[in-house]
């Protein structure tokens, strides 16, 4: 239901290092929890998050159950030219989420 929350600056100067923030809704069930009747709750996590800048990967993270629910990432990249940032999340049970953000470089 919830769209990923992406935050990038509206405009950046060429060569400037700028900050990208992402937040998505995901339970990140560790697989180490049990129900009150003793059944194991199966693992259900996001396993990979990646960001591409005009098609070239600039950031990739392999996630483990230790990452909190509603995974949050804050990272940096160099402004090269205007274009599109593509974000992808994949995980257990065929989880796949994506988002884009435009970046204007002057």
């Amino acid at each position, binding site marked *: *239901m919830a*769209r990923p*929350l992406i*935050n990038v600056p509206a405009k950046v100067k060429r060569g400037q290092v700028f900050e990208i923030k992402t*937040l998505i*809704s995901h*339970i*990140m069930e560790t697989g180490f929890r049990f129900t009150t009747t003793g059944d194991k709750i199966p693992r259900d996590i996001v396993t990979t998050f990646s960001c591409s800048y005009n098609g070239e990967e600039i950031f990739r993270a392999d996630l483990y159950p230790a990452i909190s*629910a*509603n995974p949050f990432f804050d990272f940096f990249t160099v402004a090269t030219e205007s274009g599109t940032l593509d974000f992808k999340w994949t995980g257990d049970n065929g989880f796949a989420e994506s988002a884009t953000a435009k970046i204007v470089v002057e």
Partner: protein
Amino acid sequence: MSLQTSRVAPIIGRATAVAFMLVAIASAANGADIPLDQRRSGYLDLGRDSKAMQDDDTINPATLWVQDGEALWNQKAGAANRACADCHQDATVSMKGVAARYPAFSAARNGPVNLEQRINLCRSEHQQAQPFAYESRELLALTAYVGRQSRGMAIAPPDDDRLAPFVEAGRKLFNRRIGQIDMSCAQCHDDNWGKKLAGSLIPQAQPTGYPIYRLEWQSLGSLQRRLRNCMTGLRAEAYEYGAPENVNLELFLMWRARGLLLETPAVRP
């Protein structure tokens, strides 16, 4: 008492006089309320990173629910095929101050209703739609979105005489010992706030930011969920969601927090 009220009333105003009277009655019966100028939001006791999480909407997980709430606000629903926006237009205008004065009296229910119940009343009466379940993603999203519009505003319980008996009922619940632990809310949150319980700081329990993103839940949740957690913590049977006891407690707690600023949606441990 009445002599005091009539002396005070011309200077400060009737609502405040009623408030002072209630405080006077309550203090005599129940033991120390927190002095008004010593009341503080749990925000002040947060660690640096949790404060930062709350202060910045771009990194506050609660924003995910607020976004959903905005989408729901504009979505047509029910047999009436009506969206919230069709009656209430722009929430940033029409909902300003609403969460700050809830729970409010509902003539339909002949008693107080909290914001969640008010939203569900709208759904069933005006949208002819099924009410949302308590703690459902949709209800939390809408409550967060509506609550967000009152951020920064002072909690302002309505000046409504019809609410007085329910505030008093809430006060009694707050002061009543419950559970196997056999303690009342007041014993921790009025008498021992600021001290530690099993390594955690005891807050004053001022509901300044509900619905909150609670780190313990790793999710957004309502004030009633938090109250039920406390009751379970005391090894008492928690009142069901929507039970009049929970609503009266909410009503009393918001009255107790009157004047403190709303931070919805807040982050709490």
